Every structure is written in C-alpha cells, then in structure tokens.
C-alpha cells in the first residue's frame, strides 16, 4: 500500500518542532544540574589576607607579656628537669601535637652566672650548674607561639602558623633581648621567657629560653 508522501517543507517543520519542543522540555525539566562545589555546603577557605605581624604584636602584648597568663617558677622547673625530664614535662610543660618538643613558659629571678655568645646564663638557685640560658642571638622554633596553648592554629594554613612563629621570634629579639645587653656577671635579673626541651634528646636538659620580659639590676 502506498504511503502518503509528506512534503519536504512540512518534514523540516516537524523536525524543527520536535527540536524546539525537546529544548523547551529540557529547559523546564533539566536532567541534571551543574552547581559549584561551594554551593553544596563546602567552600575552599582562602588563607590570604591574614595580618600575621599585627596578630603577633597583639598576642605578644595581650598574652605573652601579661601576668594574667601565669608562667611556672624557673627554679622549680630546673630542679624538676634535673631529676626527671619526663615528669617535669608533664608537670610544667605543654606539647602542641603528637610527640616532640615540650614547651615551658617560665618566670624567675636570679644572678647572671656567665655570658657567652649564645646568651646570658642565669643561676636561679638550687641547681649546682646554671641551667637557664636567656638567648641573645637569633631565636628559632615555635616556643613563643605554642607555649601558652591559647592559640587555636588548626584552622590556619601551616604557612600562616609558621609565619606567626617567625614574627614572635622577631619580637623577642627586638623587644626583649635589648634589656640583656646591659647585663654583667653577678647582676640581679628578673625574667619571663619561653623555651623548649626536645624529648628525643638524651642530653642533660638546659632551658634555652627566648626572653619575653627582662629586668636587670646591677
């Protein structure tokens, strides 16, 4: 049986009609949605714009120097370290992560026992050998950043956290070490400082401290 032939023009109209209809249906009822991942409840955090030097200065002034944040008595810490470093770390120190160094925030007074190129050795009483060294050269490490436990760094990038350590070390060198320049052997000295002991080291512990506040009296 012969089928009725559809004219060429009508055929194209039917195809165009189907196409338009398909586009309209897909537009009204899309089979999938493209959404940025930030729109599904998660967004990449931008770490740019953190004012690390300003934050370091505020932290220095409001926390590290402040007597409201108590430090341990230097003589007690030294005595405990000489007896049992692990116990001393547990009693007076603080750790920032898993393993590694223990940080100490100490205050104390004593006499300048000696001075060398690394710093000023203080006799805080009790121990036979001075085991407290206030650094006068470059300050390295994270003691000033991590010793109080008041900073929650877990939301910052590691680069910002490291930069904060550098800034705080710089403040120790520029603000606190200046007072040590006038120190002479035998002078009385009062100080507040932060330092670290490495538990992987088996050497006799010496408190190598980054000064925070120093008063020297001849």
């Amino acid at each position, binding site marked *: 049986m012969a089928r009725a032939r559809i004219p060429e023009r009508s055929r194209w109209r039917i195809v165009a009609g189907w196409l338009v209809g398909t586009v309209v249906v897909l537009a009204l009822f899309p089979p999938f949605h493209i959404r940025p991942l930030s729109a599904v409840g998660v967004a990449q*955090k931008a770490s740019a714009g953190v004012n690390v030097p300003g934050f370091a200065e505020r932290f220095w002034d409001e926390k590290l120097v402040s007597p409201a944040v108590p430090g341990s008595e230097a003589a007690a810490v030294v005595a405990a370290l000489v007896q049992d470093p692990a116990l001393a770390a547990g009693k007076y120190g603080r750790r920032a992560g898993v393993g590694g160094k223990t940080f100490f925030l100490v205050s104390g007074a004593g006499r300048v026992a000696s001075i060398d190129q690394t710093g000023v050795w203080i006799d805080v009483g009790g121990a036979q050998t001075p085991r407290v060294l206030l650094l006068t050269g470059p300050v390295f490490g994270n003691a000033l950043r991590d010793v109080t436990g008041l900073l929650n760094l877990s939301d910052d990038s590691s680069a910002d956290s*490291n930069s904060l350590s550098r800034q705080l070390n710089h403040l120790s060198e520029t603000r606190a070490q200046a007072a040590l320049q006038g120190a002479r052997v035998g002078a009385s000295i009062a100080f507040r400082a932060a330092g670290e002991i490495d538990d*992987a080291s088996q050497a006799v512990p010496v408190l190598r401290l980054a000064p925070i506040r120093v008063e020297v009296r001849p």
Partner: protein
Amino acid sequence: MSRVGLQPIRMLMAVALAALLCACNAASESAAPHRPARIAVVISTLNNPWFVVLAETARDEAKQLGYEATIFDSQNDPAKEAAHFENLVASGYGAVLLSATDADGSVANALRARAAHIPVFTMDREINSTEATVSQVLSDNYDGAVSLAQYFVATLGERGRYVELLGLVNDNNTWNRSKGFHSVVDRYPNLKMVAQQSADFDRSRALEVMESILQAQPDIDAVFCGNDAMALGAYQALLGAGRGGRVKVFGFDGSADAVQSIAQGKLAATAMQYPKVMARTVAGFADRYIKGERRFPARVPIAVDLITHHNVSRFVDRGTRPNS
C-alpha cells in the same frame, strides 16, 4: 474484552510484581553477609619507599579496625588522583585516607568526596582547605627543618657555599621545609646558597640535577635536600664527581636508606618523620568518624626528630618514635 475490563488486571499484576521484587530484595539482603565499610588509601606515589610504609600502614590499620581497605596509587599525577576519587565516590567508600599530589589541585577531589558525604583525612601532605577535609595529620615540617638547619649551621661552622634541592614545587611540604631551613640559615651571612633547583622529590632526577649543578658550581660545601631520596641521588652525583664524603649532604624523611647512610657517614643528617604514626592516627580518625564521632582537630602536627651520627643508632625502626 473491553479496555475498562483490563485495567484492574494490569494493576493487580503490577502490585504482584512489586511485591515479588521487594521479597527478592529482602531475601537477598538477609542472605548476604554484612559487608564492612570500605576505606580508600589514596597515596601520592608508591615509587618512594617512604610512601609505601605510609600507605601499607594505613591500609593494615584500617583492616585491623575491621574495614576493607584498598590502596590507590596516584603516581604523583593529579589526573590519576582525580580518577581515583571518581571511582571511589561511585563505589561508595566509607572514608578516604589521602596523601595528596597537589596542595591546591587536590582540593577539588576532596570536595567531591565531601559532597558525596565521604570524609577525607589527609596524611603527610597538606591540602589548602580545612573545609574539604575532616582532619589533616601532618609532620611539623617547618619545625623539623629549623632543627636540621641549626645542625647544618653548626656542622659548617657558620660559613660555606651550599646547594638546595627542592621537592615538588606545588607541594606545601616543599615550601615548609625550605622556609624553615632558610629561617635559620639566612641569618648567617657567610653561608651562601649558590644554586636552588627542584628535583621533584625524586632520586634519579636529583642525580641529574646535581650533576648539572656541579658542572657550574664544583666548589660547594653542602647540599640541603627536601627529602631523603633526593639526598641519596645528590650523594651519588657527588660520588661520581669525586666529591663524596667531602660535601655534607642533608636529607629529610628518615627513610631506611638515609638512616643507614648516616650510620655509614655518607649523609650528614636527616629529619625523621613518622609515617606509621600518621597512618595509624588517620585510620583511627576514620574509624571514629564512621562510628559517629564528628569533632576532630582540623590539623594535627606530628613531631619530627633530627637524626645525626650522634643519635642514629636509636632510630632503628623507621616510622616509629624511639620512645614509643
């Protein structure tokens, strides 16, 4: 038979078919044994023995905790890592333990998993988003490099010419190590860096790069490398140039080869990372997450220890702290 008469029969057949399907499904569910959640260990490369320890410890710890665990090797290729994530999202894994190929590039992969409600925990290699991950367990590379650099300064007597070989330039560990190192070494004006080049954390690449640097700078005192594989490659190049033993080579990682080389006096020092501690920590976190816990620290630093010829004998079991 009229069309109206067929309608109830069709409905009855549809209901009967649905009931049959439900019954079959229930029967198969009750008959199938309970499958434990699966954990994916997506590792940046298995070409480096250090990462093999990291991956295998994570996998074994996950198995110990009762999960099926699979290692996916990204071969330091972000595209391969992306393909692994597509795969594991589609397969419905319960958690991902990730050592990323790219600090920025891997964020999208972690976000994809997060969007599919699959928690991601990074180990060793940081990605630049705390939103994309539940927790990042990382070596304190900066602090380790500071300790290493202080030993470097003391060993060289505060003066000398040195070369630095960087790792992958798009990896945060590369820059945290380099910045930690320079935060110390740059304070000593008589220590001069005569060349700084990337060797992609790769031993053979470090050999080539070091050979090329030695053509231009034969008179050096030390090489600081961003990992142990590069340190061993650099040492090989120095040996070939007749400078082995005279130039101090410093690595980072604490790989078995490097520790052995320090004991033999070939390398000067390295910084021991603890891949087993990191791997066990993230596997434990994933287990706790799957069991319902939701409060985890965004970042957990793992301490890094300096290894020199003074203390090398104490670091016998790579990846485990000597006191643990």
